[in-house]
């Protein structure tokens, strides 16, 4: 399909409508859906897990599950809430599994937010000095985020980077709105303390 035609289709259908087509085996609808959501899903995982390669693998797993679950998908909630719920569950499971891999983490200090596999990803830094400063800053923010308990971290990422409402976060995490409020207050307090240096 020509590019303009493709963009038109991309704009024309909501994600929920695309899911209905995917349930009928429409691969093109699936391609549009993947392109539409891949960056937000990838970055949600990356910010949560802190590893590019793992994030990419899990992102593939998310879309694999979307394809498999298309037949049983019911558009009761927003599609983004549904896909973020799949993503969050995969992230929590991955964290549980990675607790068994503490040996290798211990032997590989500084593995968080590593640069492994960068050849797959576009380079966005303009100069060497900027790169060093940005990486250092990025590393400290990432470490502060990583230090949060998993539910606080996920709630914080969903609020800060995806601007989900408390109700949507509650649906993703499977908890109450007041619990989301409490998770975010605690997360913000911890991050304020850990990132004081940047805030002066």
């Amino acid at each position, binding site marked *: 399909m020509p590019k303009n035609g493709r963009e038109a289709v991309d704009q024309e259908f909501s994600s929920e409508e695309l899911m209905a087509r995917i349930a009928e085996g429409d*691969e093109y609808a699936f391609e549009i859906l993947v392109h539409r959501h891949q960056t937000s899903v990838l970055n949600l995982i990356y910010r949560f897990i802190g590893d590019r390669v793992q994030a*990419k693998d899990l992102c593939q797993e998310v879309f694999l599950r979307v394809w498999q679950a298309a037949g049983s998908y019911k558009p009761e909630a927003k599609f983004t809430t549904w896909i973020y719920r799949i993503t969050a569950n995969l992230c929590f499971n991955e964290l549980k599994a990675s607790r068994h891999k503490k040996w290798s983490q211990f032997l590989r200090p500084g593995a968080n937010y590593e640069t492994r596999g960068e050849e*797959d990803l576009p380079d966005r830094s303009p100069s060497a000095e900027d790169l060093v400063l940005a990486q250092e800053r990025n590393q400290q923010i990432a470490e502060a985020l990583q230090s949060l308990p998993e539910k606080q971290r996920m709630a914080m990422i969903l609020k800060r980077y995806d601007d989900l409402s*408390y109700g949507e976060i509650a649906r993703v995490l499977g908890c109450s709105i007041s619990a989301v*409020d409490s998770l975010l207050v605690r997360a913000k307090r911890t*991050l*304020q303390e850990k*990132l004081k240096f940047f805030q002066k």
Partner: protein
Amino acid sequence: MRQTMKCHRIRKKLSVYQDRELKPEEQEAISGHLQSCQSCREQYAEFERLWQTLGGIEEIDLGPWFYRQVVERIKKPPERGLLPALQRGFQLLRAQAIASVLLAVGILVGIYLGDVMVRSDFLPFGQTPAGYLQETFLDSLRAFDPAPPGTLAHGYLQMAGYKGDEIK
């Protein structure tokens, strides 16, 4: 500025206020308070600074082949058979297996060292090496006397019990 009860209540809600999750009238009430209270305004500014700081984290992107990779993964037949199942089982049990092996090695090393390092002439039963004498064993038990022969304590006790008629 002195913190009032109102400030205390408002500060508890600053996070939710920042996320625009309060009822409109509460949002407005807090906005009004922040305009008039410098201390609360400073507290709120910390939330805003944190929000800005967190914005500094990098965003990554996927390569152009991502969709193709997803499709390949979908079309890849699931791994079946005994070997993948065993591999998965081993991955799950790996930590426990390593711990069990280490424990077994520790026990074996302990048994070996215990056998080598404990002197056989201290053993009342069991091994009786050549030249073993009952007297040797009894002498060795004297190590537990409060004042074994040849020690200062033994000498002192001898002197304390001195009786003139013992010297002949």
